[in-house]
């Protein structure tokens, strides 16, 4: 619905200035009985146009100061607050920042305010998407008025024609008003795009209005979407024969304040995907602070996130990785897949940009972290990462010490174990924050090689199911992981260092 309206605007003929006589002509072409009736009820000129289903740039061209009452050409409705849109389409509003009521005559004046705000923040953009948010009370008004029209003019031929297109919603009418001037001021076209300009109207009395209808249960929801509401029909059916129907009953009094209007712009998040390697045993994956003290000297998410954030001028970042490793475990091999979400960037990142940032991160002197294959990803990036997270195999290399010297038979015994089932109770070191459960994990294969000519030190290569605790598999966690290397070899085993050597996932490999 919104997309169609925007398309229609860009397809319409360029907004040559409509003169006030054009407006007069247009008003005279409308059914006069309905027109006069609405005028007498205090409906503003743009609401009238939209009730008759009129679209296009005329909304943008009307000057509030030169609108005349079609009946007596003297007083204009624009001096009073419209009962339906509460000033939204009359460009009357209360500005939260300036803390006073504004009364603008043309759409262009409002667009000026918005364009100034956009330029202030230094956004780079080649298109914008206008979003409007309207208080529920006004949507209620719209719906009530539409059903009122249906009951009063339902039999008239001009209404029968219009009923298919319906009336133009307040949101669309506002967009018809503002999009052309904004396109001129911002020097680009409007379209569905990541750069959003959001206009928010709120009303203090609006919540009360909605609360009043809450005792009608489900009918409330339908009212918000602008369909005919049961309360409206209920009231109407009892008085539809009554010609002197009291219009004011539909619209609770004392709604004579304009809405609060606030506006801002932002960009939808960008996502970078890639793989990271961690060369340090003193760097955690995410920021880790206990009692105001940082654990470790840095974190992977900060090293990558801060660089990206600064380079594209974002507000903040979120780091998501496919699994994690301890602070003292290195991440080697092809690296671990991750997605970095950057919110509200001022610049628009490109593929080249991603390449440059990757080079910048890898050039760092201290060589704590490395990034590979950094690039922009869409929503498919998430699926790639989450898919099969629990099943993917991980490969490790552990430096292991045994309490007795090992012989060839021991090596062979370990190598011969394929798809070994291991029962792991939640390790003591994480038991304070995880449920006490026994989890069965699979060790797919193992291989041991001697190290530094010692008969008690070995490099253990193993490939396991995701979620296996390797350290506990080596030392047995006081018997809570069974079997363990120690129990298999019939001696005590300790792990001195651990490295992740491969994460067998398909994503972000190029």
């Amino acid at each position, binding site marked *: 619905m919104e997309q169609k309206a925007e398309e229609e605007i860009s397809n319409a003929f360029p907004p040559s200035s409509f003169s006030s006589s054009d407006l007069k002509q247009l008003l005279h072409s409308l059914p006069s009985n309905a027109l006069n009736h609405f005028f007498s009820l205090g409906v503003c000129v743009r609401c009238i146009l939209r009730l008759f289903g009129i679209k296009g740039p005329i909304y943008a061209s009307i000057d509030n100061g030169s609108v005349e009452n079609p009946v007596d050409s003297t007083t204009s409705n624009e001096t009073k607050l419209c009962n339906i849109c509460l000033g939204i389409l009359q460009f009357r509003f209360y500005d939260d920042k300036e803390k006073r009521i504004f009364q603008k005559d043309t759409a262009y004046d409002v667009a000026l305010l918005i364009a100034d705000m956009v330029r202030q923040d230094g956004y780079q953009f080649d298109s914008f998407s206008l979003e409007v948010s309207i208080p529920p009370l006004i949507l209620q008004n719209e719906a009530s008025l539409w059903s009122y029209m249906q009951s009063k003019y339902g039999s008239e031929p001009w209404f029968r024609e219009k009923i298919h297109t319906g009336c133009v919603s307040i949101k669309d009418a506002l967009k018809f008003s503002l999009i052309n001037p904004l396109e001129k001021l911002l020097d680009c076209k409007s379209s569905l795009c990541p750069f959003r300009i959001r206009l928010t109207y709120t009303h203090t009395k609006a919540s009360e209005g909605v609360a009043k209808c809450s005792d009608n249960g489900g009918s409330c929801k339908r009212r918000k979407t602008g369909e005919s509401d049961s309360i409206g029909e209920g009231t109407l059916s009892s008085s539809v024969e009554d010609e002197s129907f009291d219009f004011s009953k539909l619209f609770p009094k004392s709604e004579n304040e304009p809405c609060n209007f606030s506006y801002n712009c932002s960009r939808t998040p960008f996502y970078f995907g890639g793989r990271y390697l961690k*060369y340090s045993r003193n760097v955690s994956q995410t920021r880790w602070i206990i009692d105001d003290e940082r654990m470790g000297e840095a974190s992977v998410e900060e090293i990558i996130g801060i660089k990206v954030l600064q380079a594209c001028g974002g507000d903040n970042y979120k780091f998501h990785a496919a699994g994690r490793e301890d602070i003292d475990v*290195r991440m*080697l*091999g092809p690296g671990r897949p991750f997605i970095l979400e950057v919110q509200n960037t001022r610049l628009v990142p490109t593929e080249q940009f991603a390449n440059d940032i990757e080079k910048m991160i890898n050039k760092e002197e201290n060589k704590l972290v490395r990034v590979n294959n950094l690039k922009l990803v869409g929503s498919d990036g998430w699926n790639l990462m989450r898919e099969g997270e629990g099943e993917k195999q991980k490969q490790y*290399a552990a*430096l292991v*010490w045994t309490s007795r010297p090992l012989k060839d038979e021991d090596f062979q015994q370990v190598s011969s174990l394929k798809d070994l089932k291991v029962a792991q*109770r939640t390790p*003591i*070191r*994480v*038991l*304070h*924050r*995880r*449920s*006490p459960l026994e989890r069965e994990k699979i060790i797919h294969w193992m291989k041991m090689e001697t*190290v*530094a000519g*010692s008969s008690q*030190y070995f*490099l253990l290569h193993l490939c396991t199911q995701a979620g296996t605790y390797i*350290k506990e598999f080596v*030392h047995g*966690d*006081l*018997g809570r992981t069974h079997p363990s290397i120690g129990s298999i070899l019939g001696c*005590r085993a*300790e*792990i*001195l*260092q651990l*490295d992740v*050597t491969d994460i067998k996932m398909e994503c972000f490999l190029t």
Partner: protein
Amino acid sequence: MSDHITEESNFSETKEKEKEKEKQKEQDEAEDEELRKLLLSDVQNLPSTPPSAVESNFAIYFALDFMKPRHDQYVYRHANGLCVIGLAPSHVAFKDEGGITAIDFNVGKSDRSGVKVTGKRKKNAQHFESNTALCKVSTKNDSYIVRCCVKGSLLEVNQQLIKQPELLNASIGKDTLLL
């Protein structure tokens, strides 16, 4: 004539594929070599006996003569607050002939081995004072009450000891686990 040409072009194609395979193999080997260098970068000064996992991760305490002479117990306290309680090697029970023959967790008001703690919040964990009885260990002629010696909630007991009490006689022995 055309067969000859096709043969030749096939031949050069396979040669190219072989070259690519060789290149890939070299690349993989180079990467493996780099990885190995990294993996073995710290193997220069390895101690003859490294510290055990318990020594590295826990603070080891002993409660000697706890409430009764020669009732020596250990408490391994992890940085996260969890404690493992057990009999110290100097406990009087080990001195009896034949060592420990049975363990009974059914002491006090409930059977400690039947405790079912669930969830992150550790629901159903029983609250213990330092003098609450954990279990009773029996030897051929005697039995001894083992007490908690710390204040906390019981998370789990070492079920293996019920069926295999002789494990306590070996060097590896764990009794209970507390929060």
